[in-house]
């Protein structure tokens, strides 16, 4: 009930947009080749649910794998960069450069190097998603209060203890903000990776829908991609909530 009330505005706005779109398509008689009406998309979605589900499953598993690796990698990288400042100066620019490579140029190379299996797609998902998490984690560490650091240092805490007891807890909020940004991109990244070469997946489905001139199926796949992403973000929220020590208590600040 409470949840429903909370997301009601979102549902209302979404419904209004869909209604306007449907009306526009019907009234203006837009060719479904260009812009299918929401009802067309829904029909296509239902008619092809079996096939789409298969592709979605494939994309979801690539994403799950890639995103987990990405979180782990971002965390480990943030730890390494935190502890070894010259490494930060050495690697951070390279990480930035890695983000500036248009995937369109990189993806085909990945396929050539790593084949058609899971690996290249996973790597592309990692490439797309690790960076916002890394930036967020580092900015989270930077948020550690000097008072807390000083206190612990005065207790003779080593670098590791400082990290575990101050930097890491200070970065909690920033970490989840980064996770939300990355999580938003994870599914799209997987789809994109599939676009560059795969046997199955929503990306392949979109490509083939497009090459068969089926805009309705393209949009149906978009809907599925959104649903998958919202699901992933829901999981992230759940983890944030479950890991919140103050869950039972009043909000801290």
């Amino acid at each position, binding site marked *: 009930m409470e949840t429903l009330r909370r997301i009601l505005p979102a549902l209302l706005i979404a419904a209004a947009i869909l209604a306007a779109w449907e009306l526009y398509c019907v009234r203006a008689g837009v060719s479904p080749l260009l812009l299918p009406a929401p009802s067309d998309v829904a029909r296509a979605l239902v008619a092809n649910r079996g096939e789409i589900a298969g592709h979605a499953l494939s994309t979801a598993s690539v994403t799950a794998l890639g995103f987990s690796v990405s979180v782990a990698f971002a965390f480990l990288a943030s730890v390494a960069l935190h502890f070894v400042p010259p490494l930060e100066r050495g690697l951070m620019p390279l990480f930035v450069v890695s983000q500036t490579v248009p995937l369109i140029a990189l993806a085909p190379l990945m396929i050539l190097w790593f084949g058609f299996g899971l690996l290249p797609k996973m790597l592309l998902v990692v490439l797309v998603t690790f960076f916002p998490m890394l930036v967020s984690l580092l900015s989270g560490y930077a948020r550690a209060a*000097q*008072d*807390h650091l*000083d*206190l*612990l*240092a*005065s*207790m*003779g*805490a080593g670098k590791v*203890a400082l990290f575990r*007891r*101050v930097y890491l*807890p200070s970065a*909690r909020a920033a970490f989840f903000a980064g996770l939300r940004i990355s999580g938003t991109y994870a599914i799209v990244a997987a789809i994109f990776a599939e676009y560059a070469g795969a046997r199955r997946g929503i990306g392949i489905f979109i490509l083939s829908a497009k090459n068969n001139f089926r805009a309705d199926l393209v949009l149906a796949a978009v809907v599925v991609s959104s649903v998958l992403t919202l699901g992933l973000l829901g999981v992230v929220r759940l983890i944030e909530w479950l890991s919140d*020590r*103050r869950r039972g*208590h*009043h909000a*801290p*600040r």
Partner: protein
Amino acid sequence: MLRVEALTVTARERTLVENLSLDLEDGRITCLIGPSGCGKTSVIKWLAGILPAGLAAAGKLAIDGRDISRPDPAIGYQPQGDALFPWLTIAENAALGLEVAGASRTSARARVAPLFPAFGLAGTEELFPDQLSGGMRQRVAFLRTIVRQSRFILLDEPFSALDAVTRMRMQLWFLARLEAEPRGVLMVTHDLREATEIADRVLVMAAAPGRIVADIPIETPRAARSEAALADLRQFLKSLLLEDFSS
């Protein structure tokens, strides 16, 4: 014996503390008083090994004649603010120092738990810092400091947020504890009554630049100090604080 020799602290062009030397005797309480802003906290932070980034210091620190590098486990420290961690419960905050020193979670918790009632903190164990009053938070910070075993202990206005009675209770508890477990204490305080009642020695700082202008041992045992003698001493200290030492 902990000895500071010729400590000078500077912030860019300004000299905050100049050529300050002091001794901290084992098992005795030294109170450091001085006008607000004279450099007490800076001295304490330097001793604790956490001088702020903007400041530079020169000086020697030795324990029993051996130079030491800081932070040193032989020196405990309670900051002027409480510096409680908002993401830890009160019990966890209190146990933090022990855990950092290597104690297990459970043994650390077991060591701090019995002290909560005496500190008037019973029942707050599972609360978070923002659910406590200022004075309660300060007592948690004191508890966190005092449970650590360290030969010397630096306290920066540890009871400033306490009412007269709670303050007195904490002082008595502290003295009893020191009786059982002697340590060298350096305590910054603005409460001259506190200084005269518990100190074995009072150091008076003047400002601009910060330096020690009086070193007053109080030889009378604490129990034997008469209210009248203490009042005189307080008056004297006050006059020192009022004096204009600017050279």
